[in-house]
């Protein structure tokens, strides 16, 4: 566990020193929050009845989605693909930590850098745009738990893509399409309950909604009681499936990697 955190800390420091411009990032996050705020406000004034939640909840959902853009700060698949291409992956494999856990540790560190930016942005948005707090403490805690699961689901999807890069070489372009799929089916901007039925059904089966839609719906109080429990069950189910698949996929990719290395 200590080794795990040391890698997390290392990733945190690396990103915060080299790729980070705190105030500019906050400004851009606020700009995106403001944009979605305007969109929902206008649509709400046009047709208040079409939302099935109130305006405050809808705006909170949108703003929270923009804050959770921080989930794309960590791209373990790009790291893996680079290391494989340059051959430096062997130093990663020699580290005193299981590769899968090592990637999780790095990824957590990078995501925490994002969080150090999302939290102040949300606080500013709370005062400027009128974002709601969760209805009660229990809901807030449930949100954090569900958010953690959402992060883990996304990490494992990324990791699987990384394992694929061992055989498919360049995943830079696939990555673009991949992230728009995550955003769209995850419900980062538009919640799944507004989707037309057939698209909604597809989105409801895919794992992506675990990352944005489920935690955010819990936060605004759209999912409560049994519905919330069922949503978290859904996240747990996908997490288990993805962890198992990741272990298998990496084992397989690892063997291919050794063969390629000669």
């Amino acid at each position, binding site marked *: 566990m200590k080794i795990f955190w040391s890698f997390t800390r290392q990733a945190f420091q690396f990103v915060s020193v080299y790729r980070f411009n705190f105030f500019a990032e906050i400004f851009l996050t606020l700009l995106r929050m*403001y944009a979605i705020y305007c*969109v929902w406000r*206008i649509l709400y004034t046009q*047709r208040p009845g079409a939302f099935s939640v109130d305006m405050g909840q809808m705006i909170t959902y949108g703003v929270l989605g923009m804050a959770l853009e921080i989930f794309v700060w960590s791209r373990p698949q790009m790291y893996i693909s680079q290391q494989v291409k340059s051959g430096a992956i062997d130093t990663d494999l020699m580290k005193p930590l299981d590769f899968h856990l090592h990637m999780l540790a790095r990824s957590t560190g990078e995501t925490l850098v994002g969080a150090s930016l999302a939290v102040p942005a949300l606080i500013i948005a709370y005062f400027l745009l009128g974002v709601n707090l969760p209805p009660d403490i229990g809901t807030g805690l449930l949100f954090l738990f569900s958010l953690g699961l959402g992060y883990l689901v996304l990490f494992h999807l990324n990791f699987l893509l990384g394992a694929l890069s061992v055989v498919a070489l360049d995943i830079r*372009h696939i990555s673009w399409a991949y992230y728009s799929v995550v955003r769209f089916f995850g419900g980062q901007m538009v919640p799944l309950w507004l989707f*037309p039925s057939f698209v909604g059904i597809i989105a409801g089966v895919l794992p992506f909604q675990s990352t944005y839609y489920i935690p955010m719906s819990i936060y605004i109080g759209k999912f409560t009681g049994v519905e919330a429990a069922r949503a978290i069950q859904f996240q747990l189910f996908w997490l288990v499936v993805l962890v198992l698949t990741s272990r298998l996929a990496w084992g397989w990719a690892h063997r291919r990697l050794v063969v390629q290395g000669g």
Partner: protein
Amino acid sequence: MEALRLYVRLVRVSMQARLQYRVDFVMGIFSVIALNAISLGMISIIVYRFVSLNGWNIWDLFFLYCLWLLGHSIYSLLFWHFWDLQEYVTQGTFDQFLLRPASIFIQFIGREVQYIGFADASVAVVGLGLAYINLGLHWGVKEWLFFPLVVLSGAVIETTLVLMTACISFWTGRSDMAIDAIMSFNFLVQNYPIDIFGTWFRVIVTSLIPVAFMNYYPALMLLGKSDPQSHWQWLGYMSPVVAIILIAITSVVWHFALRRYSSAGG
């Protein structure tokens, strides 16, 4: 003329270099089409529920998005590597342009191409076609003549803004954050009509970062809409003028930037 011939030659070489990687080419095209399809899908879902966004129906919004994208496709095909100016400057790669007996600027702009521009262009043409049919537009000669000018101006506006911003790296060694900022405004203008964002936003994207001239103002004119917040219909015709002004400013900035350059290699 000599410069143009050199440029065309450089672009051809860069294109051949890119086409070496067939799988990458196909995946890149596929990904960019998917990415745009999803963005348009998102817009469709919003409008499907709410019929229109501040008076813009689904095809108006497609038109807005794709008009931007068509101008952008020229930029993304030929000038995408302006982002990398920062790397060229900090790593000293820029030196090689200074050593050869040809225009530094031509060598720089011809250095790379990004075929994803083809994908952008094809999505844009299909989207604009669909919008044209579904909106029942009947353009006269004036609109048909003006349309290619708008597209070209859009490309110039985006290209010059990015190049100017990239030039910051000659002074500070870093420009990626500033380009990010410009692009954030740019993507909002691509996706939404700017009349939903309030006056301060409109002022910025009309003057300081005039990307609204890539799609919003000319689209009002081409779609025969009126601007809910201003009576300046003539802004719709201003895109080429804005483009020319930006070219002038950028060439001044570029010359100052070059004078500022001192090789990182030492």
